[in-house]
């Protein structure tokens, strides 16, 4: 049975991992490779690296650290930030990333999703969606959220954009629920369940994790394939190894960190 994935997200800025609250006020958490290895050892199923300023600054992701991570890490990882062409995606994939995630550039030019799917297969193409509820009660998509001075609301309804992204070739959707991001009050289960209903490809929840119960709830109530979190892992408020064991005890299909040994007889 397919395991539900626990995915630490590492927001990268100027070569280091940072974390802000509600996408703002970023503070340094640590080094990229050092944190990646720590989470791998703790039992993370996958890692996502967001170069949070690449898209607003209109520059490509720095592939040097992608290659450093790929040399050290033996779990899948996805790179997001500033990828706006097949060539830029190829550079990141050749550097060793398993997937690329596109967000603002896909909103600028939706055909990019199809171009990437045709070039690398849908399994390599993740579409990140930053979503916030407006005054009229509708969830709508936000763009350039890495830079408060450029962040903007779009007319796309979140559900419509998720459907369109799949039609164009998205192999996975990461839904960043901005209203709950960084405040640790739980995932936006209501929104995620609605998106799940229109999402036939893997769906990853992002924004709001604070306790082990929040992970269980989003798996059980929104049927997401994976749950992404940052601050609770960075601060140690939730330990991934303990979380996996707890979820397994709750009857969830998860990968509990293995005792696998390399040498015969050990």
């Amino acid at each position, binding site marked *: 049975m*397919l395991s539900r*994935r626990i995915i630490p997200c590492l927001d990268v800025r100027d070569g280091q991992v940072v974390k802000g609250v509600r996408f703002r006020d970023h503070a340094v958490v640590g080094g990229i490779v050092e944190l990646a290895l720590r989470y791998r050892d703790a039992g993370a199923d996958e890692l996502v690296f967001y170069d949070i300023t690449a898209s607003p600054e209109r520059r490509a992701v720095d592939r040097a650290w992608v290659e450093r991570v*790929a040399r050290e890490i*033996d*779990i899948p990882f996805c790179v997001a930030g500033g990828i706006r062409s097949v060539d830029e995606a190829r550079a990141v994939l050749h550097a060793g990333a*398993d997937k690329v995630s596109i967000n603002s550039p896909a909103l600028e030019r939706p055909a990019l999703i199809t171009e990437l799917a045709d070039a690398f*297969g849908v399994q390599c193409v993740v579409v990140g969606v930053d979503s916030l509820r407006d005054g009229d009660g509708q969830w709508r998509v936000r763009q350039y959220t890495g830079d408060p001075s450029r962040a903007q609301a779009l007319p796309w309804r979140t559900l419509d954009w998720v459907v369109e992204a799949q039609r164009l070739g998205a192999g996975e959707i990461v839904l960043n629920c901005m209203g709950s991001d960084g405040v640790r009050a739980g995932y936006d289960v209501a929104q995620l369940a609605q998106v799940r209903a229109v999402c036939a490809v893997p769906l990853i929840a992002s924004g709001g994790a604070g306790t082990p119960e929040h992970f269980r709830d989003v798996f059980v109530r929104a049927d997401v394939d*994976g749950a992404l979190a940052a601050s609770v892992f960075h601060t140690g408020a939730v330990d991934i190894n303990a979380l996996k064991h707890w979820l397994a005890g709750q009857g969830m299909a998860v990968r509990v960190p293995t005792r696998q*040994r390399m040498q015969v007889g050990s």
Partner: protein
Amino acid sequence: MTMPLATFATTRSADDRQPSPSVVLVDAGGTNIGSMRYALQRLGVQAPLTSDPETIRSAGKVILPGVGAAAPAMARLRASGLVELLRGLTQPVLGVCLGMQLLCAHSEEGGVDCLGVIPACVRRLQPAPGLRVPHMGWNRLRACAAHPLLEGLDDDAQAYFVHSYAVPVGDATLAVAEHGSAFSAVIARGNFQGMQFHPERSAAVGARLLHNFLAL
């Protein structure tokens, strides 16, 4: 480049002047070869990527990685003149993901005949309610035959899969995984073996399985 070295019987030191590398990766034009090279480097093995027939023929071990679709991959192998060469190899050969599927007789993906060294056919995974295709993520391996490739594998071992086509359970199956129904996760016939998952992305479980292959 300096890499942490673990010593295995199959590993030759970097300054060994041996003309034929102990392990080669067959260049079938896939994109994501880097992660497999790095995984082998972590095991102390420098594996060149090559489409040169003589280098492949004389290698101690051959790995056929694969990303993409079966039909274009077979077309590339044909264009490189590698089809008959790969069929005739007698050293241990490992096909990974699409590479495993290419070892089989036929694939439903593009309706293409493959290398045919393992008597099995590749079928599309059938979507069902609550069952996402592609099958993407970690899933449990269950061994169903004894084989040196599975030596020391934990009972609760999981590996990382990304695929939409699979080999049904059959005579060549060594281990299965379940996504809706059981399918072949590891297969072997003679000197040919295949892994449907990505050992290079399957943490300690994957490293152990690659280590076992290198020790064959």
